[in-house]
């Protein structure tokens, strides 16, 4: 037999290495996002009365944030003890893995998702209609569902808010509220804003300019930070104040260059990056993530929801945090959640009854009750609002503001069913970097962004068929 020559061996090595391009691509996981509220474990005070355990049986596969503690092994044991006959297999939340499982025709029965995912998945007929289960449930009653659960109700992918129920959130927050670092205001001799009257975005910008502190090129105090990976959700809410949409009525195009109102909103965030008022993508990177920066006393004002109150006070920021209502763009107060993290059931689950039993337990029994008292989010059931912590002066101040925000009853944001969750914000950050660097103008940024997003929408329309 002819031995492999050195040249043949090298050729073969080259082929193998080139081929590994594909393999390595599949092996990567979804980049880490900013930490979200986790279900801190608190001792359950009472357990809601539920119907006797249904005779459901089977193995339920749940894709959830295991490593982050939102669904722990202890919780699974607790469930399996309470509902013998049902076993639970937990899979770490991983979009790549989900794609693979779905493509193989065997997706997880229950999946942790966020609100923007509901319309695209609904359009692809991937969600199980849970309405009959909700109607029969005594643990998660329809009339007890908090407003954020409207994100999981839909007539069709373009009309979210009412209709069939496809899931529910685990907890939620009005997400446009602000956390202010009192010391930063004191250091600059600025008066603290009121916690009863909302700031305007314009006033917030002025304050941020005064609060931002530089030492040479170094930023030692960020003036105003916001979750830039969700920037399009903020735009939608700002435009919503005047009844305008980020997209055309049929959601087949993003409307930027044709809308002066949209241009104005986007210009606000362009100026914010140009003036280096806060951490923005890779343009002005955060030392860690904006929540952590706030905790270290590096951020003067931060746009995050109620959930952040559970971690806003640290050794550095103790007694130095003021929670204030979400700002207004055109004088109309709106404060919806922009995430509504929750759970849905796969349309092709083979064990819907068993999966529902777990769904109901996670969202309406012991784990939900533990979450309600933890302060990591507003409970998904209205009857549990009273369980939110209000022992410390800060928690009491937070509750006072939160009460006002909950009273706004803002309708849910309508996400585009033809787009993936991060398409707009990713494209925005990519072109924003060029614009801030002076390589393209703001108008060119808008044109490029619009072109990219519209191409993605067309792909989405074609994919849905």
């Amino acid at each position, binding site marked *: 037999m002819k031995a492999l020559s050195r040249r043949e061996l090298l050729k073969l090595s080259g082929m193998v290495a080139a081929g590994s*391009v594909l393999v390595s691509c599949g092996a990567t996981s979804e980049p880490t996002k900013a930490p979200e509220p986790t279900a801190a474990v608190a001792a359950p005070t009472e357990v809601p009365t539920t119907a006797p355990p249904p005779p459901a049986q089977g193995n339920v596969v749940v894709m959830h944030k295991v490593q982050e503690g939102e669904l722990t092994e202890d919780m699974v044991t607790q469930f399996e003890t309470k509902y013998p006959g049902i076993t639970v297999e937990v899979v770490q939340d991983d979009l790549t893995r989900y794609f693979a499982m779905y*493509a193989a025709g065997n997706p997880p029965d229950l999946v942790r998702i966020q609100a923007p995912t509901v319309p695209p998945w609904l359009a692809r007929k991937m969600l199980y209609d849970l309405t009959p289960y909700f109607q029969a449930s005594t643990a998660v009653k329809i009339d007890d569902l908090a407003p954020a659960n409207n994100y999981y109700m839909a007539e069709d992918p373009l009309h979210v808010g009412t209709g069939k129920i496809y899931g529910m959130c685990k907890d939620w927050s009005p997400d446009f509220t602000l956390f202010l670092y009192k010391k930063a205001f004191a250091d600059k001799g600025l008066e603290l804003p009121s916690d009863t009257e909302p700031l305007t975005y314009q006033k917030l910008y002025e304050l941020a300019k005064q609060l931002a502190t530089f030492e040479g090129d170094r930023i030692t105090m960020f003036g105003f930070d916001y979750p830039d990976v969700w920037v399009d959700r903020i735009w939608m809410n700002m435009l919503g104040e005047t009844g305008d949409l980020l997209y055309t009525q049929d959601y087949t195009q993003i409307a930027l260059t044709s809308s002066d109102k949209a241009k104005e909103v986007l210009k606000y965030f362009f100026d914010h990056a140009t003036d280096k008022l806060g951490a923005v993508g890779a*343009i002005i990177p*955060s030392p860690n993530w904006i929540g952590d920066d706030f905790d270290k006393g590096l951020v003067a004002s931060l746009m995050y929801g109620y959930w952040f109150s559970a971690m806003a006070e640290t050794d550095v920021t103790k007694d130095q945090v003021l929670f204030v209502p979400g700002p207004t763009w055109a004088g109309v107060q709106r404060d919806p959640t922009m995430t509504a993290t929750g759970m849905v059931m796969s349309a092709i689950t083979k064990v819907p009854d068993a999966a529902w039993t777990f769904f109901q337990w996670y969202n309406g029994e012991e784990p939900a009750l533990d979450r309600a008292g933890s302060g990591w989010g507003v409970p998904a059931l209205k009857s549990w609002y009273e369980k939110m912590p209000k022992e410390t002066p800060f928690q009491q101040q937070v509750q006072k503001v939160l009460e006002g925000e909950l009273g706004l009853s803002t309708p849910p944001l309508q996400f585009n069913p033809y787009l993936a969750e991060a398409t707009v914000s990713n494209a925005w950050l990519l072109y924003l970097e*060029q614009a801030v660097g002076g390589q393209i103008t703001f108008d060119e940024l808008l044109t490029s962004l619009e072109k990219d997003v519209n191409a993605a929408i067309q792909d989405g329309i074609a994919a849905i068929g």
Partner: protein
Amino acid sequence: MSLAGPRPERTRATARSRRRQRTFYTFISPWLLGFVLLTLLPLIAGLLISLTNYDGLNPRSMHLVGLDNYVTAFKDPLVRHASGRTMVWVLLNLPLWIIVSFFLAILVNQKIKGIGIFRTLFYIPSVIPAVGLVWTWKILLEQNYGLLNGFLSLFRPGTAIGWLSDQAIYGVTSIALWSGLGAGMIIFLAGLQGLPDELIEAARIDGASSFQVFWKITLPLMTPVLFFQIVLGLISAFQMFVIPWLATTSGSVPAPPRGVYLYMVNIYRQIFGVGRFGYGMAILWLLIVVIMALTLLVFRTQRYWVYSEVEE
């Protein structure tokens, strides 16, 4: 002359040959099976997906779009940008990696006491997991509170160079170089230790200086290793993804800055960020074709510069 004479010998030779072939295929079959299942089939599946509009979600709505994805790729400014940045990356990283790892190999090829410690130290970065390695570098290179800018601020107060943002090409190159040097060094070291001592000794007796020994003997004899390193380095540089991604993205930074927006980064974003699986596979296949073409080109040039003791 008997016609039957050589037959038993030939039969024995054939049987031996068959046995050797069986042994060969038995030993190579695990690799071959892995290659077919984990490389060849995914490649073919990727090629087929590249001809569809698959969005990764629902295979039932997938349909053929012919070569549309490839046509789109040639018009896509992001593909052009990512290709340009990848070329810059390859041209910067490949020569640096080759030169520095060769230099390190020469250093640790000295016969001095305790050289094993240095070899181990230089190789350690190659065995550190990428996440830990990048995290350490991020502490060093962070813009506002990083150690490097802190040090530079001693000379120019308030220095805040964006090593992982606007100057990311340099910051990420440093990380990639540091993590890859050990592996490069080991291969060069193995090559250096295989060089015949008598040639070098003869040159020294003839009065050759160290530089002359290196230039006239070591380097020519090392060209087969150099060639191998260039091929592997080229492929690896074109595939670079993990280090730029880990070093420059976070929860609040969903994509690397434009300076290190490499081709593989764009593929990842198109597939998992935008959900364009079909399109992502198409641009992935274009990359495979480019890598193969360049590899072939390097192979074609070897007759002009790679030393071989055997006539081709």
